[in-house]
């Protein structure tokens, strides 16, 4: 940052309060959490010993303690182990859905933003229509077709979330298309192919990356809300939404079965949001 930027010489009556140290602590925690999460998804055995699927009915509903740091669930399975092993399916669902959502979104947003006035108007209308279907409602409808399970869940959430992301990307792509530097490149005599390759794609990639980073947490929440309604990954998968949903009957006797999967979901959402925001700020204030 240049020295002049830190000065309230612009019209800032009350300069923004930024706690740079705090911001980085947040980012560091988020990255640490995400690293652990990915580690858990790739090699869960490193973080939890034991089998997430083997039941021990006698030990059901054990409160958190030395033996089981997060307690056991209704089948006597260790919550910590299940949370760790559940990271994979939760992440796969989250990342899978956001990838699908973004692909569907792109397939509408790209022709809309770069395909001429007619396409732009058409896509605008399509988004206007699709946007009136709330994500969860759309996903719910789709579960009727695709039944349930991990893959159908990804499809339902992915398509359900697509209109929202599509509209966002569409708007950002339009901004890029009308950006001064595109016109500058044209006026230099660059070919459309060159402009697409050097400007449009790399610049469009940024909002895409931000949407992707922030979206993983959001799609995990959407997916778990479908899991919650009994349409999620099939048992005995240690998917967080399902775990949470299964535990809610016992909330009065064994709060930990519902509480900890929720914490995992919330932390994931917070971590991806923090990362996404960092990327956004990073892209907006400096160059890569």
């Amino acid at each position, binding site marked *: 940052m240049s020295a002049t930027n830190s000065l309230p010489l612009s019209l800032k009556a009350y300069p923004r309060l930024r706690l740079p140290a705090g911001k980085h602590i947040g980012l560091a925690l988020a990255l640490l959490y995400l690293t652990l999460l990915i580690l858990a998804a790739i090699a869960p055995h490193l973080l939890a010993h034991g089998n997430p699927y083997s*039941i021990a009915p006698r030990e059901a509903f054990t409160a958190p303690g030395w033996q089981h740091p997060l307690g056991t669930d209704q*089948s006597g399975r260790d919550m910590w182990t299940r949370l760790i092993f559940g990271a994979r399916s939760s992440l796969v669902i989250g990342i899978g859905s956001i990838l699908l959502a973004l692909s569907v979104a792109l397939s509408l947003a790209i022709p809309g933003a770069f395909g001429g006035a007619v396409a732009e108007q058409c896509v605008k209308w399509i988004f206007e229509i699709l946007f009136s279907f709330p994500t969860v409602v759309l996903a719910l409808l789709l579960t*009727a077709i695709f*039944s349930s399970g991990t893959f159908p869940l990804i499809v339902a959430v992915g398509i359900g979330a697509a209109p929202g992301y599509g509209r966002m990307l569409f708007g950002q792509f339009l901004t890029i298309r009308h950006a001064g530097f595109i016109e500058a490149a044209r006026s230099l005599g660059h070919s459309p192919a060159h402009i697409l390759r050097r400007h449009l794609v790399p610049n469009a990639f940024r909002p895409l990356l931000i949407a992707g980073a922030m979206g993983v947490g959001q799609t995990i929440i959407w997916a778990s809300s479908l899991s919650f309604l009994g349409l*999620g990954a099939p048992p005995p998968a240690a998917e967080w939404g399902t775990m949470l949903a299964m535990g809610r009957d016992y909330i009065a*006797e064994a709060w930990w079965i519902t509480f900890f999967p929720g914490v995992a979901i919330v932390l994931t959402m917070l971590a991806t949001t923090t990362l996404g925001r960092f990327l956004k700020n990073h892209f907006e204030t400096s160059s890569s």
Partner: protein
Amino acid sequence: MLARNTAIHTCKAVFHSALLAALCLPLAACHKNKHARNATSPISGGTLIYATDREPVCLDPHVQGDMPQVFVAQQYLDSLVSMDKAGGIHPWLATNWDISPDGLAYTFHLRSDVTFTDGTPFTAEAVKANLDHMANPATQSSTAGGYIRQYHSTEIVDAHTAIVHLSRPYAAFLEVLAQGFLGIESPKALARPRDLNCQAPVGSGPFRIVRWDRQNRILFERNPAYHWAPSYALHNGPAYLNRIEWRFIPEPSARFAALQAAEVDAIDTLPPEAQTPAQHNADLWLLMADRPGNPTNGTLNTRRAPFNDVRVREAFLRSADIEGALGSVFFHHYRRAGGPLTPTTPFYSPDFEHAADYNPQRANILLDQAGWSAKDADGIRTKDGHRLTVHIPLRSSLSNSERTLWEQVQATARETGFDVLLENADDTSVNTREGQWDYDVRIGYWNTNTADVLRIVFSSEFLDAAGISGHHQNESGFSNPDFDRIVNEALLTTDTEQRRNLYYQAQKIASAAFLQITTFPQTTRLAISKRVHDIRLEPALNVTTLYDAWVEQ
């Protein structure tokens, strides 16, 4: 199937099998029940708030016919006959009846002082209208209509005499008539379009329906003219309660919490996890009873591999640790049901309780014998390159407790080498798969007050019952001529010992075929505030009746 048929069994009840009373009823419940009964004499007035889990889709129990419908029907409908705790049939709307020697004609003599709450008098015309209504396909009646398939026509002799003609002898006809599913509605109300009647059906019962606020509650009001109570009732004349608020709280923990917070006065389907706290709560008393019939189970599809082999079926049954599940997720409050009949069913024999107990060693031997001897990298048994896979569709409305039970079955069966796939789907998709025999295990239960249930769930007569759409009550696909002969013979005779003998044989055949992995009996489980007295279970269908109930003011 979802339609269930039940018989009463209260605390004091001693059914045919007297030895079972102690087994089926938690002692605490009996104790509390007695304690409550010792209170002061009934007071008229007040409102009772009753919370239940499932909401009916139609209040007319003739249409479709699911348990929640009969729970409601019991409050506003009367039946032609009533049943006592011992299974004896008594007059209700019919004062007496004659049965022709060939068993094909039933002549009912009716009460002449009964009026429906819409003012229509109860006559032979009403009997005809009701039975015709149940038998009419447009009613979409599956339970009531299904139980009286032998119905042919009703002949009106005079205003208070009606002859019902059957096409085939049906020993259980009167028992079936005692069920709330076959309750008598006002013919004037029945004449309305079906969906209109569903909203506000009219009966002659102790209460009438005032309003149905979907997904919220039904409001009942006392029928002040009521004085034709059945013989099992504690009093005659109008009900004590002014009003009933019948709430729907599907969430088990919320339902119990609402009771604890005194938001409601009584709840049914007390969740297992709440039973111990409920027993320790001095403000509550419990009312529980097993329902007779075919217990909660997973029925194995014998029509396709791997369960077309009886050894694999037995192996599967023996590798599932049901007791473990009942001890954990059901907190030891549910008892194991081992045989094809629930102990409270007539002609139940305890001999088959342990025919398929958990025994993984035996399961392994059986599977080796059946050719499933190889194991793949995951530890799943294989045969000719096929994995030993078992598909179990789980409908989204299945309770979490049962879900967990099957998850535990999945885990224990895996140890013997079964790859159990629990497949979530919405209810309709599951129904469709069942219609197409696309499952290996089907989760369900069938409650009825007669051992005739064996005919419905295992005889070949019910393999293609519904024809084109593939609906079938015999979910196992079991077809055995000997078995068919035995259960049909049992319908023709009224001799108790002969029937007992026939049903023993039927149970033996079913049990030896390892057709079902039975889990626990269906149970009526009420938790009630101590300020409410005399909530009782109607003997024929084991359904809550609030006719005698009263509230301390």
